């Protein structure tokens, strides 16, 4: 059967063609393709890993930012509260100070008035004393114008001293 007997010419050319094809592809074909496919697979793996990491980092960053925002808000509230407190404190203090100053002023005024009143009283008493002495002098002079009355008085005074 001619179908089952290999033809030498075809065997020869097949051998030549196949060996040539193999050499060409083994040198410049397959290594390039396989290297590139491996490289791409690695790159894709790396990319997936990177994306995962990036997402993780992003999540972390977001959480951190949230934390900072919260912190800042807390601090702001604190500061506001502090400011308010300070405001009331200052007002209170100012009021107290004002009150104290007013009181002092009033005290001083009261003291001065008191003093003035005392001085006035003193001078009034002195005046009254002088007046009464003057009056008494005048009355005495009038009453002691005769000797009898004078001796009577001396006696009386002497009695009094003796009694003592």
């Amino acid at each position, binding site marked *: 059967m001619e179908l089952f007997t290999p033809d030498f*010419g075809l065997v020869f050319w*097949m051998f030549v063609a*196949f060996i040539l094809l193999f050499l060409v*592809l083994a040198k410049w074909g*397959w290594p390039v*393709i*396989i290297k590139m496919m491996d490289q791409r697979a690695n790159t894709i793996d790396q990319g997936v890993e990177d994306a995962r990491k990036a997402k993780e980092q992003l999540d972390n960053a977001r959480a951190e930012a949230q934390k900072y925002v919260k912190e800042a808000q807390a601090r702001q509230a604190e500061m506001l509260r502090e400011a308010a407190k300070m405001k009331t404190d200052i007002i209170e203090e100012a009021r107290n100070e004002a009150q104290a100053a007013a009181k002092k002023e009033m005290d001083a005024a009261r003291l001065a008035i008191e003093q003035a009143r005392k001085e006035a009283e003193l001078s009034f008493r002195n005046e009254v004393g002088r007046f009464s002495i003057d009056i008494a002098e005048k009355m005495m002079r009038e009453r002691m114008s005769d000797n009898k009355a004078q001796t009577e008085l001396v006696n009386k005074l002497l009695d009094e001293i003796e009694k003592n």
Partner: protein
Amino acid sequence: MCLLTGCRSDTYINILTTMSKYHKIPLIHSLATTRRAVLGLLIAVLLMAPSAASAAGHDEGGSLDVKGIIFEHLGDGYGWEVPFSHTDRIPLPVIVRSEDHNWFCFSSAGLTEKTETVDPESGKTHHALEPVVKTIERDGKTYRFLIAHESANKDKVVEIFDLTPAEQKELDARLADEKKTGDVDLGVQVIDGYVYYDGKYYREYRPLDLSVTKNVAALFIAVILVIAMVFGLVGFYRRKGMRAPRKGMGFFEMLVGFIYNDTIKATLGDKTKKFAPYLLTVFFFILVMNIVGLIVIFPGGANLTGNIAVTLVLALCTFIITNIFGTKHYWKEIFWPDVPLFLKFPLPIMQLIEVFGIFTKPAALCVRLFANMMGGHMIVITLTLLIFILGAFGAAVVGLTTVVSVLFTIFMLLLDVLVSFIQAYVFTLLSTLFISMAQIDEEEHHAKEDKGDSAAESKDLAELAAQKELISREAAEMDLK
């Protein structure tokens, strides 16, 4: 396979022209009925076709050389058939070495001649391609070559010589012998070493024939296609860097990945780099040859992988690589395998089987690919020829046969596309297996087993530890809550 390149290609032209004529009709119908109408028309056209076919068959005298046509399509040729023509061939170079060791190279067009004979009854002209003697003068000597027909070297180029008186005597004696033994007169007697041509016997010499035949040309086309595919992809990488190719190139790359990662790497492991180029080349070369063989017209149509010479060379390459790179352990397993002593000494039973196995493995590779592809081609061409074989039984029978055989032919061709992939893959897979079986080292062999055990053990331990950790963590969490 070469459906359209066959002798009856005019039939197909008839079908095509009739179809194109009637094809406009369905447009009148509503869309819903169009499909049914087309189908009906197709069948009607196919039923009409056989009358043309039987007419064509009648042109050539009614008898059909079925075997000749099948073998012409399965075999090789010095020229390449042109579609829709009985007599035109694309000429290819014939390269032969004559008896006195001179090389000759000439076009195959010089070995055939178109003839025109007019049939006196019908008045029709009949075209045929007849072999003629190619005469070459060189250094005062005349060399004559011929495509032998009535000879032991049928359809091959032979160098012919006029008979010397002694040879004439011997030939006469042998012819007389044949006549005595043969019961029936078979016409021309085929005598070994002689060729009958144009009413005369010549002494023939089958030269060393390195002609670029149809198969060799198809081989070159396949090589160019594979190189174009591979370097197309390499060029793509060079232009586009690491970007993934799309469409055809993407499919090619996917195939490379499938063969390289899932077949070669999975089997050969760390020896992949050494053998992958060979195995990849084998796969794509076979695949391209298979597919190109299925294409009916010119660049295809050669029954390449259905030719035993092609598969023989491929199997031989696998055989050589398997045994050249075989390890010590591989040879030890052949000549002193791990079997009870009485099986290998004093009678070397196992050794015989193993040595036999070295050769049967590649032989199976060779025959499997050859038989599968040739079988596919043969079924398709036979199904097509069925139409013409049944041409004698009238239009109705042949009409039905035409429908059935065209449908079956399409089905078989589609199946052959699948078979092309499968056979290319099987050849590569088995080559990989044979090579990997010759790559096992003794230490590796044992080490693998040991490593397997210890690996399993350590894996168990690791799992246990992980579970423990998980439980303790859960407990801690519960505590926290």
